[in-house]
């Protein structure tokens, strides 16, 4: 029932859109009918072109997320657990954080050219900060009462970290993960639109040159679907990791 009701609004929008296009109120040059977008999708899927571009984008997003996420996690843990490490790195990280990472695009293209590494690096950079900050915050805000209790019960060092501090930081880390997934897709769209020879962004820019509005709309929808897909995956992971959390417990 909940799943069904969440689809009412999108279905109604598409239906209205189709009706407006079919009755000629909406020019195909401005916005093609949903049916035209669907046939463009079928056409590109049959030729295999859609899959190639989808794969290219997903690989960049996945690789960039993995690199930026793991570096952010490791540095966040290091800063959260070691005051010395925090003193050494945190102010530099906070300074760099305030530069919009997309502003670095020209510089990154100069350094790495327009091949894969430039886009992966940009995604990794965008993903890094939310994960770093939320990991750091989660670890710093570990419940001092629980830590004290665990020390009385003989836990210290690594066992204290992985049984008490890290699980306590996980909800905050997962907030960072979901936030950074959004940034990963946003970064990729910009990077692929400006400099790429494959990927969904390239597909859209290429179609623009040939006035294929239906393909442009299709590319935008693909981003929406990929974003929704990655969000769903992270929700499933979160539900598995935080199964103990009161939010995920059915009474």
């Amino acid at each position: 029932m909940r799943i069904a009701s969440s689809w009412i609004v999108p279905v109604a929008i598409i239906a209205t859109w189709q009706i407006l296009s079919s009755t000629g109120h909406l020019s195909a040059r401005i916005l093609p009918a949903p049916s035209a977008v669907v046939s463009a999708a079928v056409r590109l899927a049959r030729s295999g072109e859609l899959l190639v571009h989808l794969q290219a984008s997903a690989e960049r997003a996945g690789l960039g997320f993995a690199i930026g996420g793991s570096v952010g996690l490791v540095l966040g843990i290091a800063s959260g657990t070691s005051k010395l490490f925090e003193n050494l790195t945190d102010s530099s990280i906070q300074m760099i954080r305030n530069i919009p990472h997309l502003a670095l695009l020209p510089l990154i293209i100069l350094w790495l050219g327009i091949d894969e590494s430039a886009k992966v690096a940009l995604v990794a950079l965008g993903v890094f900060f939310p994960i770093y900050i939320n990991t750091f915050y989660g670890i710093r805000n570990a419940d001092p009462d629980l830590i004290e209790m665990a020390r009385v019960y003989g836990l210290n060092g690594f066992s204290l970290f992985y049984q008490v501090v890290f699980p306590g930081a996980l909800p905050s880390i997962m907030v960072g993960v979901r936030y950074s997934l959004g940034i990963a897709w946003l970064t990729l769209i910009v990077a692929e639109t400006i400099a790429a020879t494959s990927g969904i962004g390239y597909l859209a820019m290429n179609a623009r040159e040939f006035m294929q509005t239906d393909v442009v709309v299709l590319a935008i929808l693909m981003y929406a679907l990929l974003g929704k897909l990655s969000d769903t995956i992270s929700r499933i992971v979160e539900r598995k990791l935080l199964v103990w959390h009161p939010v995920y417990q059915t009474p």
Partner: protein
Amino acid sequence: MRIEISQLSKRYDTRAVISNLDLNIQSGEFVAVVGASGSGKSTLLRLLVGLEVPTGGSISVDGKYIRGLNANSRMMFQDARLLPWKTVIGNVALGLSRAEIDRGTEVLNRVGLLDRHRDWPSVLSGGQRQRVALARALARNPRLLLLDEPLASLDALTRIEMQALIEKLWIASKFTAVLVTHDCGEAVALADRVLLLENATIAMETKVPLPRPRDRTAREFAQLEGQVLRHILANRQLVPASKTTTTNRVSRADNGNAQEAGKPA
């Protein structure tokens, strides 16, 4: 576990929370410490378990001086402090090796919660959480159990049930117990000896010679409870206005300490 405390002092800056306290506790004895909030009761327990370091004096256990945390002492806190990401049995077995897991199920059975062993702490009631915390404390066979007002937030009936459970397990396991409480009835119901902590030192000491399990409705019980309560009230009312502020300051020091100690080390 025999405890000898001599000339024990703990001060924060210039404020003495415990000063020159002498106390001997026999092995297997159940001692209750009562007193107004801020009288240093909790600090005394934290010194005993090793979470605080004394500024003066010494604590010795079975003739050996101790400093810092030790494996023979366990503590129950006012809140259960269960790890929300571990199941009930996971919490009870905290710090136990794989070979000792059976010990966890055994104590969980003794507190009557074996059927809840796979539940998450968040679905338990307050009383059940404290029973899990009690099982966790007993899983390591402690020779000294320190109880820091563990029943203060429970309702009256659950509290009486928990008191009976603690007494039963204490009789069975013969550990030494020190209970901090503000409830004189609880102190008389459980302890062999009740101490009143006032102005950073022991102001009164009463033996409780009643047979166990204790009958709360008996006249002797009520008399003893009244006696302890009268001492607390008498000391309070006799304190002149200037001294009351001292007590308040001590209490603030106590809170400040709790926050400071709360920071991860």
